[in-house]
C-alpha cells in the first residue's frame, strides 16, 4: 500500500464517525449532538456564532455534511496551534 503524500492526508482519518459523513448529507442539531456526543445547545451555539455554515439563517438549523466536516477540521487545526 502506498503512503499518501503529506499534503493529501485525511485530517479526519482518526475520527471515523465524522469521516463517514458524505458531503451532501443534511444534518440537524440533534443528529450532530447524537453522533459526536455533545449537548444540542453546544451545536446550536456553533451555528448561532457562525462557526458552522448552516442552510437556514435562524432556528431549525440544518447543516450540510461538507460544512460540518470543514468546521471540525478547522476547529482541530486551531486547537493544534494553541497547543
Amino acid at each position, binding site marked *: 500500500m502506498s503512503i499518501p503524500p503529506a499534503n493529501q492526508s485525511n485530517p479526519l482519518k482518526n475520527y471515523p*464517525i465524522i469521516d*463517514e*459523513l*458524505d458531503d*451532501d*448529507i*443534511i*444534518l*440537524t442539531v440533534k*443528529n450532530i449532538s*447524537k*453522533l459526536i456526543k455533545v449537548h444540542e445547545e453546544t451545536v446550536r451555539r456553533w451555528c448561532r456564532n457562525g462557526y458552522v455554515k448552516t442552510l437556514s439563517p435562524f432556528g431549525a438549523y*440544518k447543516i450540510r455534511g461538507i460544512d460540518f466536516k470543514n468546521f471540525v477540521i478547522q476547529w482541530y487545526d486551531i486547537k493544534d496551534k494553541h497547543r
Partner: protein
Amino acid sequence: MTLNSTPHILLHTLITNHFNYCFSFCCIMCVLCLCMFLVGKDHNDYYTLVLERREQIMIKQQVLTRRQAAFRSEIFPNQFNYLIQQEPFSSYLIKDGEHEWLVNSEVIPIIKDYYTTHNHSFHYYNAHPDYLIAYQVAPILNKTNMELLSEIQKGTWDDMIVKVPRLAPPKVSYIAAEKFHYFFLKSELFKNQYNTIEQIALKTTLISRTRLQEYRNLGLLPQPDHLKGTNLYNEKEILEILPKLKMEFKKQTPDSKNHNAFDLLSSEQQQLITKYLKYRENSGVTEYEGYRSSPSIANKKKTLETMKSKLSSTFILIISGRCGIEEDFHKNPLNRNKVPAAFNPEVFDVLNISKDDYAFLASNRAPMTLHQIYHKLRPFYYFLLENFEEEAIESDDLKDFRDFRRIALRVKKFLQQFPHTINEINQSDYEQKTKSFLTREQMILIKQYILEDVRTIDPIKNATMWQVSCTIGVRPEELPQLKINHFKLNAEGFIDQDENGWGNLMLPAPISKKGNSPSHRDFHTPVPKSTVNQLNQYLTRLYKRQGENNPRGQGYLFRPDYTLPNLQTKRIRFRFIERLRKRLDFLEENQRKDFIFKASRHSLNNTIMRTFITEDHSLNEAKRTASDHQLRHKPTKTVGEEYYLDDITKEQYYQVLDATINFPWDLEKLVLWEIEKGYRISVNPIQKEPEENVEFQQQLRRIEEQLDVIVEKPKHMTELQWTKQRHMLLEQKNMILSQKRGGG
C-alpha cells in the same frame, strides 16, 4: 309582603296566630314550646323540632314554603318567587300570617313545566342568528330602551316580534313592570336593507374589510339619518357606490391633494395661461417672427396639461428668484403646501420679463431642461406678442406701438438666452445612454428573471408586459392605455388565435405615440403564439380577480387594480427592470447601468433586421418593411418604392415574423427552434447512448433515488445506521462509476 322571613318571626307568628287556618298546628307548637321551656332544653333544638313538626303537618295539608317549593320544582328560589307571583300561579299562594306566604304543592309540576318550556325558548331565540333581543335593537334604531319598549307596547313592531315571558325579575328597575323578553326578527327589521360594514365587506370582492372601515372612518360612506351613530348602512347603496368611490380614492395621489404651481400664480397670470391653452386647444395657430405653431396637438389632454404645468412652474421660479427665495419649494413634495412668506406673485408681470430673469431659471437647471422650457415658452410669448401687436397697430396712439416694441424686444432678449437646439448644448452636458439589443435567448432570460423577482407584487403582469413589448413592440408609454378589446377576442374574452396560432392587435391611433402610430390598416399587428399564450394566462388571472360583476373583454389590460377595469394606471414605474440590472451578466457594464424597459422594443427591431432568413432568401428584402409595420413606424421608402412599388403581402409579412419572432419562450425549445431554422449550429448533437450503458445508468439512478430519500435522517434509523447506509450506497455508486470508466 316580605319575601324572606327570619326564623324568629316565623316562630313569633306561629305562637301568636291561634285562630288561623292551621290552628291545630299552632296549638301543638305552643304546647311543645312550653314543655321544652319547662324541661330547660336549648333554644336551637326547640327550633328544629318546631320546623320538623311543621313540615310534617304542611305535607299532610299539601302546603309548602316558597323555598321548599322552589327546591322541589328545581328552580332557583328568586325565579320561583317571581313566577309564583305572576298571574296564572298567584292563585296558588296562601297567606299564612301577616308576613308569611305558603304555596300549594299542586303548582309544582305546572310551574316546572312552564319554566322549562320558556327557559328553552328564551335560549333558543337568544342564540339564533336571525333574532336580535330588544336592548340590542334599540341602539341600532337610535332609540333608548324605554322608547322602544313603549313602541312595542303600542304595537308598532308587532309584525316582527317574538314575545317570551320573563322567568326572573328584570335587573334594571325602570323595566320592573316588563313581563316579556322581546326578540326582533332580523330580516323583517332590516328588510335585507341595512347591514354592518363588516357584513357588507363580505358580500363584495371589490374591497377588503379594513379598506371599507377606512372609508367609513373618513366619512365617505353615506348613512341613512335614522341610523347615524350606528354601524348600520344601506347595503344596496354602499355596494352601488363602491366602484365609483374606490376609483376616486385611487385617483387621489399626493400631487392632487397639494397645491400645484398653477394655483400659486396670481389670477392675472392664470388668466393669460388659460387663454393661451384654450387657443391651442381649439387648433389656434400662432405665427410670429417666422415661427408657426402646429395647428393640431397630439394627445390634447395630456399635452395641454404638460404645457400648463411647465409654464406655471417656470413663472414660479422667476417669481421666487425675484422674491429672493433660493429653494425650489414648489417642487419639493414635502413642503409644497408651505409657501414661503416672501413669495408674492404680484412682483412679476408676464410681459414685463427681462433677460436677468433667465438667471433664476438657469442656476439649477441642466441645459437640456432649459431647452425644453424654451420650446414651451416661445409659443406662449409669441401668442401674447401677436395679440399685442394687433392691438398696437389698430390703436392711433403711437405710445402703444412704442410699448409693444419695448416689450417685444425684452421678450426677444429673454428668449435668446435659452439653448435653441440640441446642437448648442455641449455633449458633456447631457449623458447619452448606451442602448442594449438583446438576443432571443436574453429576452427569455430576462422574462425568467422578472418572474423570479420576489419584491414585486405581480410578477406575471410584469413578465406579460415584457413579452408584449418584445414581440408586439408596444411602447412603455402606450402600455397603460392598452385595452383588452384592442386585441381580437373570442367569445370567452380571451385572445383569439387563427389556424397558425397568431393573435391580432388593433392598436388605435389616439393611444399611440403622438396619435400617429396605429397598427397597420389591413394587417393590424400580429401577436405570436407564445405571447398569445402568455396574455391568455394573464387574462385568466385577471378575470378571476376582477370578479363576476365586471364584464370580460373590457377595460384596461394593465390596470392598477384588478377590480376596477376602467381605472387607468397613471404611469408604469419599471422598478422591476431597475432591480434586475445587476443580474444581466451578458451585457456590458455601461449597458447594464442604462438598461431600460424599452430595450425590449429596441431588440424587436434588431431581431427582425439582423436575422438572415435561410428558409426563403427573398423574404430578407421584405424584412425592413415588415419590421416597420410591426413597430408601427412609417415605412422608410425611396420615391420609387413609395409610388411605384406595391406593399409587401400579408403572407410575406407573416412569413418574416414567423421566421424571426415567432419563437418559443423556453430556453430548451428555443435551441431546437434556432437549429431548425438554421440560426444556430448544433455544437453537441444528441447522440444515442450505447445499450450497455443503459443498465449502468439505471443502477445509478436507483442508487441516487435511494440517496435522495435518506438525505435527511429517516425516523426508523439511528444516526449511526443512517450514516452507514449512506456510506454504503455511495461506495456502490463509486464502484459502478469506476466500472463504467474502465469499460468505456
